[in-house]
Every structure is written in structure tokens, then in C-alpha cells.
């Protein structure tokens, strides 16, 4: 059941360009959680990667070579990731890895990346401070996401006391530990910090603790999908209506939760309503390519799209797909994507424009405010860029 499914996609659109056909393709490996916890979001990530590859091939590829994507299922976990990374790096001999994955899968894959010495762009937001000479990250870390929500609650609602609820895993704990530090550094107080196992669905006791602590505001960081939904529904059923910031909800889930999500705050580097020319063009191209099968683009799939372009620019700057020159070039190139100008020049991480959104009664997310070029802070001080 955990066997690796390999799906090879040669994006056809670009094969018109005569020279691109003759050349050896540039292989990009995409280990991603097609099964397991990430299986809800993974298809959208694969779609945006396919669009990027098709667009690049239509323009003649990279250095005249076509792009070939090799998608491998990592099962959203460590074991599957080891097999997927081994296969992609040593059997398929990919030129680069570009993927959105769980932290467990990334941590399991990194030693293999280090051994294989292949450029790796990680495109998922995560708990931060994961460093490798071969890895770049173009999504957000807690330093970039938590600030906008906490600041807004303190300024807009005068919130001084906070309660934190999460799922018991690396991302949940990492986000909330950072949130606690941030709240306390800004003169606030954390009244409680409680976790439930990832597959837990009964939040009764935690909600009772929250109610008796009576904080000014609530911030949650659960695993995506089911735990997030059960917590939100049970909070609403218990009549909790204090300002509520959710660090782990995506636009699509918020939309399906409708009135249960109403009033919830989210902070993200991508929302579909971002008012940029590049975003409108991207959404239109996705719509045209996938039609009825389109999975709504989101904060995980858009960085994947941009990362493939960043890799293209780096290879062109280096003039080769050799790993070390490409790694050096990755920090220097920048791409105008749907989220803004993306350059991975902050200790292998990326300064990003962050958007604070509020879920309306119909489940749509409106942008309340945006924060330009939020710095990821000290992530990997050993790397100057």
C-alpha cells in the first residue's frame, strides 16, 4: 500500500519547440503526499507544477532542454519519503527536487538529499530552522505568519491574554511555541497552551479549560483538515466567540466550513483574492488548463509553481544544471509570481508579503491588510544568503 507510485509527466505543450525535443530533458523530482495526511492538498500542488512545466516548455524549456516532472508519492510520512527520495535521486537521477511535504517527510528526505547532493526547494510553510547546504525554502515560517495575527488582535481588540490550542506534532508545537514567545515579548500573557494527538477529535476538556481561563483571544495550530474542523465546530457549539486566529486553515477549508468559520482570522502569503496582475494571469491559466478538474490554488500550491520558475532562472544564470553552481545562483534570482517578488535570499529562506484575511459569513476570505516583505528572521545563520 505504501509502494511508491511513479507518474512521469512530460508536459506536452512545449514539444512544439523543435530544439527542445532533441535535447535530454531536465528532470525535476516532486516527492509529495498523494496518500496520507497531505492527500487533500497534494493534487493542487501537482497541478500548479504541471502548469509551470507546460509554460516553460512552451517557451522553449530551460537552456533549450524540456522540463520533465517525476511525481512520487511519499505517503505524507518518513518511511514513504525515504523510498521516494532514494528512488528519485539515485534511480531516476533527477536534476532537482521541488516539493511541498510534511515536516516528517522533509526530515526523513534531507539526509538522502545531502548524500545525493541535489538542489532541493521546499515549498511548504513549516515550523522553521531546517537547514541543509542543498535546501532552499520559498514559503513562510512562524516569524512571518504569527506576527500579523497577534499584532492585529492586540491593536484592534486590545487583547492582552491569549489561549493556544494545537495538534501534538512538530508543526503544531513549533508554531505555538513561537506564538507564546511572540505574545510574551509584546507584553501579552498566555493563559494556557493545550494539545490533542493528531487523530484526536474530542476537544471537550480543552474547550472547558479555555472557557474557565476566559482569555481575550484564541490562536490555534492544528493539523490541517479534520482536527481543524472538529475543533472549530466544537468551539462554535460551546459558544466561544472571542477573536480567533487559525494558523493552519486554508482558504478552501474555510469556505466549506461556512458559518462555523465566520469571523476567523488567517494569515497567509497567498490568498486567491490577491490583487496582482501575475495572480490573475496565473488563476486564468490554471482554469484554462484544468477546467472542471481544477483544485483551488492555495498557499501550498502557489509556492510550488513559483519554485519551478526560480529553479529555471537559477539554471539559466548558472548556465548548467550542476548542483553547486545552481545552489549558488538560487539565492540571486528573483521571480515575479502570484504572491509577489520572490527571492530566496534570507539564510536560504524568503522574505514574503503576508496577508491578514478574515473569513466572512459566506465563507469567503477578505484581505484585511497586507505586510510587505516580512523577514523570516534567523533561520539558518550558517548560510550567509
Amino acid at each position: 500500500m505504501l509502494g511508491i507510485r511513479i507518474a512521469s509527466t512530460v508536459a506536452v505543450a512545449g514539444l512544439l519547440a523543435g530544439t527542445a525535443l532533441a535535447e535530454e530533458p531536465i528532470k525535476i523530482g516532486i516527492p509529495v503526499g498523494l496518500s496520507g495526511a497531505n492527500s487533500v492538498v497534494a493534487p493542487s500542488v501537482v497541478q500548479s507544477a504541471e502548469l509551470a512545466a507546460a509554460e516553460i516548455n512552451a517557451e522553449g524549456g530551460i537552456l533549450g532542454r524540456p522540463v520533465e516532472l517525476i511525481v512520487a508519492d511519499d505517503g505524507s510520512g518518513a518511511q514513504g519519503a525515504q523510498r521516494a527520495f532514494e528512488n528519485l535521486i539515485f534511480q531516476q537521477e533527477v536534476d532537482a527536487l521541488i516539493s511541498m511535504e510534511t515536516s516528517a517527510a522533509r526530515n526523513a528526505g534531507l539526509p538522502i538529499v545531502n548524500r545525493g547532493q541535489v538542489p532541493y526547494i521546499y515549498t511548504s510553510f513549516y515550523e522553521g530552522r531546517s537547514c541543509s547546504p542543498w535546501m532552499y525554502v520559498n514559503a513562510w515560517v512562524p516569524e512571518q505568519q504569527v506576527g500579523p495575527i497577534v499584532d492585529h488582535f492586540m491593536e484592534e481588540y486590545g487583547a492582552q491574554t491569549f489561549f493556544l490550542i494545537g495538534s501534538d506534532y512538530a508543526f503544531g508545537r513549533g508554531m505555538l511555541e513561537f506564538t507564546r514567545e511572540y505574545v510574551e515579548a509584546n507584553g501579552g500573557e498566555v493563559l494556557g497552551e493545550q494539545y490533542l494527538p493528531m487523530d484526536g477529535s474530542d476537544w471537550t476538556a480543552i474547550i472547558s479549560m479555555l472557557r474557565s481561563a476566559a482569555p481575550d483571544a484564541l490562536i490555534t495550530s492544528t493539523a490541517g483538515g479534520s482536527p481543524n474542523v472538529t475543533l472549530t465546530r466544537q468551539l462554535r457549539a460551546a459558544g466561544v466567540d472571542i477573536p480567533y486566529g487559525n494558523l493552519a486553515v486554508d482558504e478552501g477549508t474555510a469556505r466549506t466550513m461556512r458559518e462555523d468559520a465566520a469571523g476567523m482570522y488567517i494569515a497567509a502569503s497567498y490568498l486567491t483574492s490577491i490583487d496582482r496582475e501575475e495572480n490573475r494571469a496565473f488563476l486564468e491559466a490554471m482554469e484554462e488548463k484544468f477546467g472542471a478538474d481544477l483544485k483551488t490554488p492555495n498557499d501550498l500550491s502557489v509556492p510550488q509553481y513559483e519554485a519551478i520558475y526560480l529553479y529555471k532562472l537559477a539554471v539559466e544564470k548558472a548556465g548548467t544544471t550542476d548542483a553547486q553552481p545552481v545552489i549558488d545562483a538560487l539565492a540571486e534570482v528573483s521571480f515575479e509570481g502570484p504572491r509577489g517578488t520572490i527571492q530566496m535570499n534570507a539564510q536560504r529562506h524568503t522574505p514574503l508579503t503576508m496577508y491578514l484575511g478574515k473569513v466572512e459569513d459566506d465563507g469567503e476570505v477578505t484581505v484585511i491588510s497586507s505586510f510587505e516583505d516580512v523577514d523570516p528572521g534567523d533561520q539558518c545563520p550558517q548560510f550567509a544568503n
Partner: protein
Amino acid sequence: MLNLALDIVTTAGILFVVASGLLIILGVMKLINFAHGAFLTIGGYAAVMGTGWGLSPWIAPLLALGFGAVVGLVIERLIVRPLYDRPLDAILATWGLGIVIVQLITLYFGREVQFAASPIRGTISMGPIDYSAYRLVVTGVAVGVGLALAALLYFTRFGLNARAVIMNETLARGLGIDSTRVRALTFGLGAGLACAAGALITPLLSVDPNMGLPWLVNSFMLVLVAGASFPGLAIAALLLGGAQVVVSTFFSPIIGGLTIVVLAAAILRISPKGLSLG
């Protein structure tokens, strides 16, 4: 204090409703139905579809009850009945059935989280505190289900036959009781109860293909401790559910999640027949 008491009682109520379908099948058929979790999931999706058609969320559990009973009768005829003489194979078959049901649901609905509308929202004022209205409703339903099942077992012909089959199936058959029919109706009832419970708890949960799994484990433990009796199940739900709430509240919710399993193992170690006296 009142809040804690309400947490305990409502948690026990939810556990009782969820486990009752498993208990009745185990009691009459001596069969652990590992497809129980999948039946809960079917109930959840029945609620999603029912409310999607614009039906009142109050009707969803009844709809799920009827649908589950029909599905249960069909499954009993096709899969469970041929295996009556091979109890271990029958248990394995229900396990496989559970996997098949979950995969069919995944194929049709996808893995995404789905939503069923909630019949009531918000809280009810209970003296000094406000408490989740829907949890109180579920607890009321649990009491109702318990009384209805007791009435069914003690005041109807079917109940009399079922009790006879529970006590001594060979003798019951010798007395002219159609035990095959009793078994079929029991499986249908158990499946219907499981689906209804799945629909009933969806307003507190998300509906996804694996929603039944954690409930299957807890129900299984409760039923083993209860020892095939409904009063036993009520006591087990209060005891184990109460312990879960107390440990979660005063110690840690993470340890709280283990309480039911650990406590059930301890009880069964001391008293292999669980809480039942018979």
C-alpha cells in the same frame, strides 16, 4: 464543577450512542463487527447528503438509521451469514468489509472534509454556566436510545427471542425460535444504530472517510468492558468517559486520549468478564 460534571455526562452519552450498535451485534451474534467504524462513517455521509438535499438536520439520524438498517440486512445476507460456522473468519470479513466501505466512500466523495448542517447552534444557560446545546441534545438522545433498546429487549417478541438466542442459541433453536432471522434483524439493527450515531455526532465533527476509526477503537473497548449488557455499557461509558475527561482536564489531554484504552485493559485484566455480573 458543574461544567466538569456536564463534560463527563455528555461524553458518556456520546460514547453510549456510538457503541450501542456494536454491543447489540456482539451480544446476540457473538460477533465483533469491525465494520462498525465504517457504518459510523456511512451515517456521517448520509447526514451530509440529507442536509445537502435541504432536509432538516433533525431528520438526518433517522434517515441514516433506515439506510443503515437496509445496508446491514443486505450485508448480513451476503457476507456474514455464510460465515456463521466460522466465527474468526466472520470477524475478519467485517474488517475487510470496513476497508471496502471506506474505499468506496473515498472513491465517490473524495478525501476532502465534508460538512453536515447542525440542527442547533450555540449554548443553553445552565444556572451559572452556558453549555453546548448540541452536546446536551446528544445526551438526551443517548438516554432515549438506551430506554428504547431496553423496551425492545424486554417488552417485545423480538426481544424475547433475542434474549433466548443470547442465553443459549442451540436450545432457542430447539424451541422453534428462528435464530437466523433473529441474527439478521440484529445485524440490521446494529448497523442502523451505528449509522444513526454517525449522523448524530457529525455536527460536532468533520465528515471524512476515516471519521469512524477512532470511535471504533473506543467503542470496542467499552463493549468489552460492558460485557454485552446495556446497563453495563452505560456504566462503562460513564466510568471510562468520565476518566478520560478528568485526566484530560487535570493532567493532560494527550494522556486523556489514552485513558479509555488503558483503563479498559486494566479492568479486563482484573475481571475478564468486564463489568457484567452474569
